[in-house]
């Protein structure tokens, strides 16, 4: 199962990547844990997770082809 991961703003700075593909993660908590292991710097950052453009607060099941975005605090305007 392929999941597209997007990093924005300071998180792209911290990971050195703006996107990557991840296999075999079944839900957002598993994905978060895996990314925190791969990019330990992320520990220091505040962010929310959006699945298919919707911010999710609780653990959320992922499906093939889902896009999961890691979003630092918004700063528009």
């Amino acid at each position, binding site marked *: 199962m392929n999941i597209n991961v*997007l990093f*924005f*703003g*300071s998180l792209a*700075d911290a990971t050195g990547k703006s996107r990557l593909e991840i296999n075999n993660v079944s839900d957002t908590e598993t994905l978060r844990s895996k990314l925190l292991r791969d990019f330990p710097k992320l520990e220091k950052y505040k962010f929310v997770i*959006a699945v298919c*453009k919707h911010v999710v607060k609780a653990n959320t099941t992922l499906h093939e082809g889902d896009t999961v*975005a890691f*979003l*630092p*605090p*918004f*700063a*528009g*305007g």
Partner: protein
Amino acid sequence: MTEKKKHNVFVNGAITPNFIADSIGKHSGKTNIGGHDIFLGQVRNDIIDDKTVVAIEYSAYQEMAEEKFHEIREYAFSKYNLVCMHIYHSLGVVKAGEICLFVFVSSKHRKDAFDACRDIVEQIKSMVPIWGKEIFEDESHTWKQNT
């Protein structure tokens, strides 16, 4: 899902006074409008840890931002009695003193325009995935935090 067309919110670079004038001028045919309220966000040359901000480089999660702008628009029309509204936000580099946000709300009576404009600006700041990289004179940067 509504069929209402999505407006193009993002503008490359600063929003110019001429762009704003054109937008105002287009409303002279709408003679049921009695009041416009316009909010303009301008980039400040804040001093952070002794370094001066010379520009902000804006980026966004565009697909999500466009959905959020659409929701904000639908909500404003449902809550307030508006004739029309427009939102423009910069992407890319905007220098200190230049304009990065243009919210333009028009109504028959001024109260709706005032209430809606303020509400929309607050929603943009809290709901839309946009980030600003504050660039200093020495080309170092920090990430803008909204208050």
